Protein backbone atom coordinates (compact mmCIF):
# COMPACT_ATOMS: atom_id res chain seq x y z
CA UNK A 1 0.00 0.00 0.00
CA UNK A 2 2.92 2.35 0.53
CA UNK A 3 3.46 3.97 -2.82
CA UNK A 4 6.75 5.64 -2.03
CA UNK A 5 8.73 2.42 -2.23
CA UNK A 6 7.58 1.94 -5.84
CA UNK A 7 6.92 -1.07 -8.03
CA UNK A 8 10.09 -2.94 -7.31
CA UNK A 9 9.90 -3.01 -3.51
CA UNK A 10 9.57 -6.48 -2.10
CA UNK A 11 6.38 -7.39 -0.36
CA UNK A 12 7.19 -10.92 0.39
CA UNK A 13 10.23 -13.11 0.41
CA UNK A 14 11.04 -16.67 1.27
CA UNK A 15 14.35 -18.47 1.05
CA UNK A 16 15.14 -22.16 1.49
CA UNK A 17 11.58 -22.67 2.66
CA UNK A 18 10.77 -26.24 3.68
CA UNK A 19 7.62 -27.55 5.28
CA UNK A 20 6.99 -30.80 7.11
CA UNK A 21 3.50 -32.03 7.91
CA UNK A 22 2.06 -34.90 9.91
CA UNK A 23 2.98 -36.36 13.28
CA UNK A 24 5.40 -39.13 14.23
CA UNK A 25 5.91 -41.81 11.59
CA UNK A 26 3.60 -40.08 9.13
CA UNK A 27 5.59 -36.85 9.18
CA UNK A 28 6.98 -36.04 5.77
CA UNK A 29 8.33 -33.18 3.75
CA UNK A 30 5.70 -31.46 1.64
CA UNK A 31 7.70 -28.50 0.34
CA UNK A 32 11.45 -28.36 -0.04
CA UNK A 33 13.91 -25.57 -0.47
CA UNK A 34 11.64 -23.06 -2.10
CA UNK A 35 12.91 -19.58 -2.96
CA UNK A 36 10.46 -16.88 -3.92
CA UNK A 37 10.39 -13.11 -4.03
CA UNK A 38 7.16 -11.29 -4.67
CA UNK A 39 7.34 -7.55 -5.42
CA UNK A 40 4.66 -5.19 -4.16
CA UNK A 41 1.49 -5.01 -6.25
CA UNK A 42 2.23 -8.21 -8.07
CA UNK A 43 -0.62 -10.58 -8.83
CA UNK A 44 0.95 -14.00 -8.47
CA UNK A 45 -0.91 -17.17 -9.37
CA UNK A 46 0.25 -20.56 -8.15
CA UNK A 47 -0.77 -23.65 -10.08
CA UNK A 48 -0.07 -27.32 -9.52
CA UNK A 49 -1.74 -30.66 -9.52
CA UNK A 50 -3.99 -31.70 -6.67
CA UNK A 51 -2.09 -32.66 -3.53
CA UNK A 52 1.17 -31.05 -4.58
CA UNK A 53 1.11 -28.66 -1.63
CA UNK A 54 -0.44 -25.40 -2.83
CA UNK A 55 -2.73 -24.98 0.17
CA UNK A 56 0.09 -25.92 2.51
CA UNK A 57 2.36 -23.30 0.97
CA UNK A 58 -0.28 -20.59 1.22
CA UNK A 59 -1.03 -21.50 4.84
CA UNK A 60 2.67 -21.14 5.59
CA UNK A 61 2.66 -17.73 3.91
CA UNK A 62 -0.31 -16.76 6.06
CA UNK A 63 1.39 -17.85 9.27
CA UNK A 64 -1.16 -20.60 9.88
CA UNK A 65 1.42 -23.39 9.54
CA UNK A 66 5.07 -23.28 10.58
CA UNK A 67 7.91 -23.88 8.15
CA UNK A 68 11.06 -25.68 9.26
CA UNK A 69 13.29 -23.76 11.64
CA UNK A 70 15.95 -22.79 9.10
CA UNK A 71 13.48 -21.43 6.55
CA UNK A 72 13.38 -17.71 5.93
CA UNK A 73 9.99 -16.11 5.50
CA UNK A 74 9.46 -12.37 5.53
CA UNK A 75 6.63 -9.98 4.86
CA UNK A 76 7.68 -6.35 4.37
CA UNK A 77 11.04 -7.23 5.84
CA UNK A 78 9.62 -8.80 9.00
CA UNK A 79 9.81 -12.45 9.89
CA UNK A 80 6.48 -14.25 9.71
CA UNK A 81 5.55 -15.93 12.98
CA UNK A 82 1.84 -16.47 13.23
CA UNK A 83 -0.62 -14.58 11.00
CA UNK A 84 1.20 -11.34 10.17
CA UNK A 85 -0.31 -7.91 10.27
CA UNK A 86 -1.16 -6.81 6.77
CA UNK A 87 -1.80 -10.22 5.27
CA UNK A 88 -5.30 -11.64 4.97
CA UNK A 89 -6.39 -15.07 3.90
CA UNK A 90 -9.46 -15.66 1.73
CA UNK A 91 -10.75 -19.20 2.09
CA UNK A 92 -12.27 -21.34 -0.61
CA UNK A 93 -14.97 -22.42 1.80
CA UNK A 94 -16.80 -19.13 2.31
CA UNK A 95 -19.68 -20.89 4.03
CA UNK A 96 -17.41 -22.02 6.86
CA UNK A 97 -15.50 -18.78 7.04
CA UNK A 98 -18.43 -16.34 7.22
CA UNK A 99 -20.30 -16.21 10.51
CA UNK A 100 -23.94 -17.14 9.84
CA UNK A 101 -25.23 -15.13 12.79
CA UNK A 102 -23.78 -11.89 11.48
CA UNK A 103 -25.08 -9.82 8.60
CA UNK A 104 -22.78 -9.06 5.67
CA UNK A 105 -21.86 -5.75 7.24
CA UNK A 106 -21.13 -7.29 10.64
CA UNK A 107 -19.04 -10.01 9.00
CA UNK A 108 -16.97 -7.44 7.16
CA UNK A 109 -16.53 -5.58 10.44
CA UNK A 110 -15.13 -8.58 12.30
CA UNK A 111 -11.46 -7.86 11.74
CA UNK A 112 -11.78 -4.19 12.71
CA UNK A 113 -13.76 -4.30 15.92
CA UNK A 114 -10.83 -4.43 18.31
CA UNK A 115 -8.67 -1.93 16.47
CA UNK A 116 -10.84 0.74 14.89
CA UNK A 117 -13.27 3.31 16.25
CA UNK A 118 -16.90 2.83 15.38
CA UNK A 119 -17.11 5.74 12.96
CA UNK A 120 -13.95 4.84 11.05
CA UNK A 121 -15.11 1.25 10.99
CA UNK A 122 -18.47 2.08 9.47
CA UNK A 123 -16.76 4.06 6.78
CA UNK A 124 -14.29 1.33 5.89
CA UNK A 125 -16.94 -1.37 5.93
CA UNK A 126 -19.21 0.63 3.67
CA UNK A 127 -16.34 1.30 1.28
CA UNK A 128 -15.33 -2.37 1.22
CA UNK A 129 -18.89 -3.49 0.54
CA UNK A 130 -19.17 -0.95 -2.25
CA UNK A 131 -15.94 -2.22 -3.77
CA UNK A 132 -17.42 -5.69 -4.15
CA UNK A 133 -20.75 -4.23 -5.25
CA UNK A 134 -22.71 -5.41 -2.20
CA UNK A 135 -23.74 -2.09 -0.69
CA UNK A 136 -27.39 -3.05 -1.18
CA UNK A 137 -26.99 -6.29 0.74
CA UNK A 138 -25.20 -4.99 3.82
CA UNK A 139 -27.98 -6.12 6.13
CA UNK A 140 -28.53 -9.56 4.65
CA UNK A 141 -27.34 -12.69 6.41
CA UNK A 142 -24.95 -14.99 4.52
CA UNK A 143 -27.63 -17.61 4.00
CA UNK A 144 -29.74 -15.03 2.21
CA UNK A 145 -26.97 -14.50 -0.36
CA UNK A 146 -25.83 -16.57 -3.34
CA UNK A 147 -22.47 -18.33 -3.30
CA UNK A 148 -20.83 -15.66 -5.38
CA UNK A 149 -22.19 -12.91 -3.15
CA UNK A 150 -20.99 -14.73 -0.05
CA UNK A 151 -17.52 -14.99 -1.51
CA UNK A 152 -17.65 -11.28 -2.22
CA UNK A 153 -18.52 -10.65 1.43
CA UNK A 154 -15.42 -12.60 2.39
CA UNK A 155 -13.39 -10.55 -0.05
CA UNK A 156 -14.83 -7.35 1.41
CA UNK A 157 -13.92 -8.53 4.88
CA UNK A 158 -10.34 -9.01 3.71
CA UNK A 159 -10.27 -5.62 1.96
CA UNK A 160 -11.67 -3.85 5.02
CA UNK A 161 -8.48 -4.45 6.98
CA UNK A 162 -6.62 -2.78 4.09
CA UNK A 163 -4.11 -5.59 3.60
CA UNK A 164 -0.75 -5.38 1.86
CA UNK A 165 -1.05 -9.00 0.92
CA UNK A 166 -4.10 -11.04 -0.03
CA UNK A 167 -3.68 -14.81 0.17
CA UNK A 168 -6.41 -16.57 -1.76
CA UNK A 169 -6.83 -20.35 -1.84
CA UNK A 170 -9.01 -21.29 -4.81
CA UNK A 171 -11.49 -18.61 -3.79
CA UNK A 172 -13.69 -19.12 -6.83
CA UNK A 173 -13.36 -22.91 -6.93
CA UNK A 174 -16.88 -23.58 -5.71
CA UNK A 175 -18.62 -21.10 -8.01
CA UNK A 176 -20.26 -21.52 -11.39
CA UNK A 177 -18.41 -20.41 -14.54
CA UNK A 178 -20.35 -17.19 -15.06
CA UNK A 179 -20.03 -15.94 -11.47
CA UNK A 180 -16.41 -16.92 -11.53
CA UNK A 181 -15.60 -14.88 -14.61
CA UNK A 182 -17.33 -11.83 -13.19
CA UNK A 183 -15.45 -12.14 -9.93
CA UNK A 184 -12.15 -12.52 -11.76
CA UNK A 185 -12.70 -9.19 -13.46
CA UNK A 186 -13.74 -7.59 -10.18
CA UNK A 187 -10.79 -8.98 -8.29
CA UNK A 188 -8.35 -7.83 -10.92
CA UNK A 189 -9.88 -4.33 -10.83
CA UNK A 190 -9.81 -4.22 -7.01
CA UNK A 191 -6.21 -5.35 -6.95
CA UNK A 192 -5.28 -2.61 -9.41
CA UNK A 193 -6.98 0.13 -7.40
CA UNK A 194 -6.04 -1.02 -3.89
CA UNK A 195 -2.46 -1.82 -4.81
CA UNK A 196 -2.44 -4.98 -2.73
CA UNK A 197 -0.12 -7.84 -3.53
CA UNK A 198 -2.08 -10.98 -4.31
CA UNK A 199 -1.01 -14.60 -4.09
CA UNK A 200 -3.75 -16.62 -5.68
CA UNK A 201 -4.03 -20.39 -5.86
CA UNK A 202 -6.04 -22.13 -8.51
CA UNK A 203 -6.47 -25.39 -10.37
CA UNK A 204 -7.61 -23.58 -13.44
CA UNK A 205 -5.01 -22.61 -16.04
CA UNK A 206 -7.33 -20.13 -17.76
CA UNK A 207 -8.09 -18.43 -14.47
CA UNK A 208 -4.39 -18.14 -13.69
CA UNK A 209 -3.48 -16.77 -17.11
CA UNK A 210 -6.33 -14.29 -17.06
CA UNK A 211 -5.54 -12.93 -13.59
CA UNK A 212 -1.82 -13.15 -13.16
CA UNK A 213 1.11 -10.83 -13.62
CA UNK A 214 3.20 -13.88 -12.91
CA UNK A 215 2.54 -17.60 -12.77
CA UNK A 216 4.33 -20.29 -10.79
CA UNK A 217 3.75 -23.98 -11.22
CA UNK A 218 4.57 -26.20 -8.27
CA UNK A 219 5.71 -29.73 -8.96
CA UNK A 220 7.37 -32.71 -7.38
CA UNK A 221 7.22 -34.53 -4.09
CA UNK A 222 8.30 -32.69 -2.04
CA UNK A 223 7.19 -29.70 -4.03
CA UNK A 224 9.33 -26.94 -5.44
CA UNK A 225 8.92 -24.39 -8.22
CA UNK A 226 8.57 -25.95 -11.66
CA UNK A 227 8.25 -22.94 -13.92
CA UNK A 228 8.03 -19.27 -13.10
CA UNK A 229 6.79 -17.05 -15.93
CA UNK A 230 5.84 -13.41 -16.26
CA UNK A 231 2.72 -12.39 -18.11
CA UNK A 232 2.99 -9.89 -20.94
CA UNK A 233 -0.70 -9.06 -20.88
CA UNK A 234 -1.72 -5.44 -20.27
CA UNK A 235 -2.76 -4.51 -16.74
CA UNK A 236 -6.39 -4.05 -17.73
CA UNK A 237 -8.11 -7.38 -18.33
CA UNK A 238 -11.32 -8.15 -20.14
CA UNK A 239 -13.00 -11.53 -20.44
CA UNK A 240 -13.41 -11.26 -24.22
CA UNK A 241 -10.54 -9.22 -25.58
CA UNK A 242 -7.85 -10.44 -23.23
CA UNK A 243 -8.68 -14.05 -23.98
CA UNK A 244 -8.43 -13.46 -27.73
CA UNK A 245 -5.04 -11.78 -27.58
CA UNK A 246 -1.97 -13.66 -28.85
CA UNK A 247 -0.13 -13.02 -25.57
CA UNK A 248 -2.91 -14.73 -23.68
CA UNK A 249 -2.90 -17.76 -25.97
CA UNK A 250 0.84 -18.06 -25.89
CA UNK A 251 1.04 -17.90 -22.11
CA UNK A 252 -1.81 -20.33 -21.77
CA UNK A 253 0.00 -22.73 -24.05
CA UNK A 254 3.20 -22.58 -22.03
CA UNK A 255 1.49 -22.99 -18.69
CA UNK A 256 -0.67 -25.85 -19.93
CA UNK A 257 2.41 -27.69 -21.08
CA UNK A 258 4.18 -27.13 -17.78
CA UNK A 259 1.21 -28.36 -15.79
CA UNK A 260 0.36 -31.37 -17.93
CA UNK A 261 3.93 -32.60 -18.20
CA UNK A 262 3.72 -33.40 -14.52
CA UNK A 263 0.22 -34.67 -14.12
CA UNK A 264 0.00 -36.53 -17.45
CA UNK A 265 -2.84 -34.69 -19.14
CA UNK A 266 -3.55 -31.38 -17.44
CA UNK A 267 -7.25 -31.49 -16.74
CA UNK A 268 -9.50 -28.82 -15.23
Amino acid at each position, binding site marked *: MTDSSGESALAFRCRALSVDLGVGEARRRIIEDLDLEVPRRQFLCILGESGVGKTTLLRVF*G*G*LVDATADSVLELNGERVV*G*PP*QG*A*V*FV*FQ*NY*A*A*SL*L*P*WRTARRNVE*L*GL*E*ATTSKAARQQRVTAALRQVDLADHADDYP*WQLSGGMQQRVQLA*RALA*VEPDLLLMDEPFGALDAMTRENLQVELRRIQQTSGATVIFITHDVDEAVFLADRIIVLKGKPASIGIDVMSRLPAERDQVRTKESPEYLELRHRVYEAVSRRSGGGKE
Partner: protein
Amino acid sequence: MGFGLVLWQIFASPDVPYFPPPIEWLRALAALWTSGKLVPAVVVTLSDFAGALALSIVIGSVLGILLGRSKLLDRLFGPALEFGRTMPAGAMVPVAVLIMGYTSSMTLAVVVLTSFWPILLNTRSGAQRISQDRLDTARVLRLSWWETQYKILLPSVLPSIQLGTRTAAPVTLIIVLLVEILTQVSGIGREIAMQQSMFRSAPVYGLVALTGVMGLIVNWLISWAGHLTRKYDPSAANGSEQ
Protein backbone atom coordinates in the same frame (compact mmCIF):
# COMPACT_ATOMS: atom_id res chain seq x y z
CA MET B 1 -55.03 -38.07 29.26
CA GLY B 2 -57.99 -35.87 30.12
CA PHE B 3 -60.29 -38.75 29.18
CA GLY B 4 -58.41 -41.04 31.56
CA LEU B 5 -58.88 -38.56 34.37
CA VAL B 6 -62.60 -38.36 33.65
CA LEU B 7 -62.89 -42.18 33.79
CA TRP B 8 -60.90 -42.18 37.00
CA GLN B 9 -63.22 -39.54 38.45
CA ILE B 10 -66.29 -41.61 37.55
CA PHE B 11 -65.11 -45.01 38.68
CA ALA B 12 -62.97 -44.15 41.71
CA SER B 13 -64.53 -45.36 44.90
CA PRO B 14 -64.49 -42.89 47.79
CA ASP B 15 -64.05 -45.88 50.12
CA VAL B 16 -60.57 -46.83 48.88
CA PRO B 17 -58.01 -44.33 50.23
CA TYR B 18 -55.21 -45.19 47.77
CA PHE B 19 -56.89 -43.90 44.62
CA PRO B 20 -58.79 -40.68 45.38
CA PRO B 21 -60.75 -39.20 42.43
CA PRO B 22 -59.22 -36.14 40.68
CA ILE B 23 -61.77 -33.72 42.18
CA GLU B 24 -60.34 -34.60 45.56
CA TRP B 25 -56.83 -33.73 44.33
CA LEU B 26 -57.99 -30.27 43.42
CA ARG B 27 -59.75 -29.81 46.72
CA ALA B 28 -56.58 -30.86 48.55
CA LEU B 29 -54.50 -28.42 46.53
CA ALA B 30 -57.00 -25.65 47.26
CA ALA B 31 -56.76 -26.45 50.95
CA LEU B 32 -52.97 -26.28 50.80
CA TRP B 33 -53.27 -22.96 48.98
CA THR B 34 -55.54 -21.41 51.63
CA SER B 35 -53.34 -22.71 54.42
CA GLY B 36 -50.53 -20.71 52.82
CA LYS B 37 -48.24 -23.68 52.23
CA LEU B 38 -48.61 -24.18 48.49
CA VAL B 39 -47.33 -20.89 47.11
CA PRO B 40 -44.05 -20.75 49.08
CA ALA B 41 -43.38 -24.40 48.20
CA VAL B 42 -43.90 -23.76 44.48
CA VAL B 43 -41.74 -20.64 44.62
CA VAL B 44 -38.89 -22.49 46.32
CA THR B 45 -39.02 -25.39 43.88
CA LEU B 46 -39.16 -23.14 40.84
CA SER B 47 -36.36 -20.89 41.99
CA ASP B 48 -34.17 -23.88 42.91
CA PHE B 49 -34.91 -25.26 39.47
CA ALA B 50 -34.12 -22.01 37.65
CA GLY B 51 -30.95 -21.39 39.66
CA ALA B 52 -29.69 -24.93 39.16
CA LEU B 53 -30.42 -24.87 35.43
CA ALA B 54 -28.71 -21.51 34.99
CA LEU B 55 -25.65 -22.74 36.87
CA SER B 56 -25.63 -25.95 34.82
CA ILE B 57 -25.74 -23.97 31.58
CA VAL B 58 -22.81 -21.80 32.64
CA ILE B 59 -20.67 -24.67 33.97
CA GLY B 60 -21.62 -27.04 31.17
CA SER B 61 -20.89 -24.63 28.35
CA VAL B 62 -17.64 -23.27 29.75
CA LEU B 63 -16.27 -26.76 30.47
CA GLY B 64 -17.68 -28.03 27.18
CA ILE B 65 -15.86 -25.37 25.16
CA LEU B 66 -12.62 -25.93 27.09
CA LEU B 67 -12.71 -29.71 26.66
CA GLY B 68 -13.91 -29.53 23.08
CA ARG B 69 -11.14 -27.18 22.07
CA SER B 70 -8.24 -28.64 24.05
CA LYS B 71 -7.07 -32.13 23.18
CA LEU B 72 -4.92 -32.15 26.31
CA LEU B 73 -7.77 -31.34 28.71
CA ASP B 74 -10.02 -33.75 26.89
CA ARG B 75 -7.54 -36.60 27.29
CA LEU B 76 -7.02 -35.75 30.96
CA PHE B 77 -10.66 -35.53 31.93
CA GLY B 78 -12.36 -37.78 29.37
CA PRO B 79 -12.35 -40.92 31.57
CA ALA B 80 -13.58 -38.95 34.59
CA LEU B 81 -16.45 -37.67 32.45
CA GLU B 82 -17.57 -41.19 31.59
CA PHE B 83 -17.64 -41.98 35.30
CA GLY B 84 -19.29 -38.77 36.43
CA ARG B 85 -22.12 -38.73 33.95
CA THR B 86 -23.39 -42.15 35.08
CA MET B 87 -23.38 -41.22 38.77
CA PRO B 88 -26.99 -41.38 40.08
CA ALA B 89 -28.20 -38.26 41.85
CA GLY B 90 -29.76 -40.23 44.68
CA ALA B 91 -26.39 -41.65 45.62
CA MET B 92 -24.92 -38.17 45.92
CA VAL B 93 -27.52 -36.89 48.37
CA PRO B 94 -26.09 -38.56 51.53
CA VAL B 95 -22.59 -37.36 50.70
CA ALA B 96 -23.77 -33.85 49.96
CA VAL B 97 -25.78 -33.76 53.20
CA LEU B 98 -22.71 -34.89 55.13
CA ILE B 99 -20.62 -32.12 53.66
CA MET B 100 -23.10 -29.27 53.43
CA GLY B 101 -25.94 -30.22 55.76
CA TYR B 102 -29.65 -29.79 54.99
CA THR B 103 -29.28 -26.53 53.14
CA SER B 104 -30.48 -25.16 49.84
CA SER B 105 -26.90 -24.96 48.58
CA MET B 106 -26.75 -28.70 49.14
CA THR B 107 -29.84 -29.08 46.93
CA LEU B 108 -28.22 -26.86 44.33
CA ALA B 109 -24.98 -28.84 44.37
CA VAL B 110 -26.66 -32.21 43.91
CA VAL B 111 -28.94 -30.94 41.17
CA VAL B 112 -26.21 -29.16 39.23
CA LEU B 113 -23.85 -32.11 39.48
CA THR B 114 -26.48 -34.25 37.78
CA SER B 115 -27.95 -31.87 35.25
CA PHE B 116 -24.94 -30.16 33.70
CA TRP B 117 -23.78 -33.35 31.96
CA PRO B 118 -25.96 -33.22 28.87
CA ILE B 119 -25.03 -29.56 28.41
CA LEU B 120 -21.33 -30.29 28.86
CA LEU B 121 -21.35 -33.25 26.47
CA ASN B 122 -23.35 -31.48 23.77
CA THR B 123 -21.22 -28.36 24.00
CA ARG B 124 -18.04 -30.41 23.86
CA SER B 125 -19.07 -32.21 20.70
CA GLY B 126 -20.31 -28.94 19.21
CA ALA B 127 -16.95 -27.33 19.94
CA GLN B 128 -15.13 -30.26 18.36
CA ARG B 129 -17.17 -29.86 15.20
CA ILE B 130 -16.30 -26.19 14.57
CA SER B 131 -14.63 -26.11 11.18
CA GLN B 132 -10.91 -25.40 10.90
CA ASP B 133 -11.63 -22.63 8.39
CA ARG B 134 -13.75 -20.79 10.93
CA LEU B 135 -11.01 -21.01 13.55
CA ASP B 136 -8.38 -19.97 11.02
CA THR B 137 -10.57 -17.00 10.12
CA ALA B 138 -10.26 -15.80 13.69
CA ARG B 139 -6.47 -16.17 13.57
CA VAL B 140 -6.08 -14.51 10.20
CA LEU B 141 -8.16 -11.51 11.28
CA ARG B 142 -5.95 -11.41 14.37
CA LEU B 143 -8.75 -11.64 16.90
CA SER B 144 -7.55 -11.82 20.49
CA TRP B 145 -8.05 -14.99 22.54
CA TRP B 146 -10.96 -13.42 24.33
CA GLU B 147 -12.56 -12.14 21.09
CA THR B 148 -12.24 -15.61 19.61
CA GLN B 149 -14.03 -17.11 22.60
CA TYR B 150 -17.06 -14.89 22.57
CA LYS B 151 -17.32 -13.88 18.92
CA ILE B 152 -16.52 -17.22 17.30
CA LEU B 153 -16.61 -20.16 19.70
CA LEU B 154 -19.54 -19.28 21.91
CA PRO B 155 -21.97 -18.45 19.09
CA SER B 156 -20.78 -21.52 17.20
CA VAL B 157 -21.74 -23.82 20.08
CA LEU B 158 -24.92 -22.00 21.05
CA PRO B 159 -27.18 -24.50 19.23
CA SER B 160 -25.39 -27.33 21.05
CA ILE B 161 -25.80 -25.61 24.39
CA GLN B 162 -29.45 -25.23 23.63
CA LEU B 163 -29.84 -28.88 22.68
CA GLY B 164 -28.13 -29.90 25.91
CA THR B 165 -30.40 -27.59 27.88
CA ARG B 166 -33.45 -29.22 26.36
CA THR B 167 -32.26 -32.56 27.65
CA ALA B 168 -31.14 -31.16 30.99
CA ALA B 169 -34.24 -29.13 31.91
CA PRO B 170 -36.67 -31.98 32.66
CA VAL B 171 -33.91 -33.87 34.47
CA THR B 172 -33.20 -30.79 36.56
CA LEU B 173 -36.82 -30.50 37.64
CA ILE B 174 -36.97 -34.19 38.53
CA ILE B 175 -33.78 -34.06 40.58
CA VAL B 176 -34.91 -30.93 42.43
CA LEU B 177 -38.09 -32.74 43.47
CA LEU B 178 -36.18 -35.91 44.30
CA VAL B 179 -33.77 -34.08 46.58
CA GLU B 180 -36.67 -32.24 48.22
CA ILE B 181 -38.47 -35.51 48.85
CA LEU B 182 -35.35 -37.23 50.20
CA THR B 183 -34.18 -34.42 52.47
CA GLN B 184 -37.46 -32.65 53.22
CA VAL B 185 -35.70 -29.30 53.39
CA SER B 186 -38.28 -27.28 51.48
CA GLY B 187 -40.33 -27.03 48.30
CA ILE B 188 -43.04 -29.13 46.69
CA GLY B 189 -41.05 -32.30 47.25
CA ARG B 190 -41.06 -31.70 50.97
CA GLU B 191 -44.86 -31.18 50.92
CA ILE B 192 -45.29 -34.42 48.99
CA ALA B 193 -43.13 -36.33 51.46
CA MET B 194 -44.92 -34.85 54.48
CA GLN B 195 -48.42 -35.53 53.15
CA GLN B 196 -47.34 -39.03 52.22
CA SER B 197 -45.97 -39.69 55.71
CA MET B 198 -49.40 -38.74 57.09
CA PHE B 199 -51.09 -41.08 54.60
CA ARG B 200 -53.05 -38.25 52.96
CA SER B 201 -53.32 -39.52 49.43
CA ALA B 202 -55.36 -36.72 47.81
CA PRO B 203 -52.77 -33.93 48.39
CA VAL B 204 -49.99 -36.28 47.24
CA TYR B 205 -51.77 -36.90 43.94
CA GLY B 206 -52.57 -33.22 43.58
CA LEU B 207 -48.97 -32.16 44.14
CA VAL B 208 -47.62 -34.81 41.78
CA ALA B 209 -50.07 -33.66 39.10
CA LEU B 210 -48.91 -30.09 39.71
CA THR B 211 -45.27 -31.05 39.10
CA GLY B 212 -46.35 -32.74 35.87
CA VAL B 213 -47.90 -29.49 34.72
CA MET B 214 -44.73 -27.60 35.65
CA GLY B 215 -42.68 -30.06 33.58
CA LEU B 216 -44.90 -29.43 30.57
CA ILE B 217 -44.53 -25.68 30.89
CA VAL B 218 -40.75 -25.97 31.18
CA ASN B 219 -40.54 -28.11 28.04
CA TRP B 220 -42.72 -25.69 26.18
CA LEU B 221 -40.57 -22.72 27.20
CA ILE B 222 -37.36 -24.43 26.16
CA SER B 223 -38.58 -25.43 22.73
CA TRP B 224 -39.91 -21.93 22.22
CA ALA B 225 -36.41 -20.59 22.97
CA GLY B 226 -35.13 -23.10 20.42
CA HIS B 227 -37.16 -21.49 17.67
CA LEU B 228 -35.56 -18.15 18.46
CA THR B 229 -32.01 -19.28 17.69
CA ARG B 230 -32.99 -21.47 14.75
CA LYS B 231 -33.68 -18.21 12.96
CA TYR B 232 -30.29 -16.91 13.89
CA ASP B 233 -28.39 -19.81 12.39
CA PRO B 234 -30.43 -22.16 10.21
CA SER B 235 -27.31 -24.07 9.17
CA ALA B 236 -26.44 -25.15 12.68
CA ALA B 237 -29.67 -26.88 13.66
CA ASN B 238 -28.20 -30.35 13.31
CA GLY B 239 -26.14 -32.92 15.16
CA SER B 240 -26.33 -33.77 18.83
CA GLU B 241 -25.08 -36.10 21.45
CA GLN B 242 -26.65 -37.24 24.66
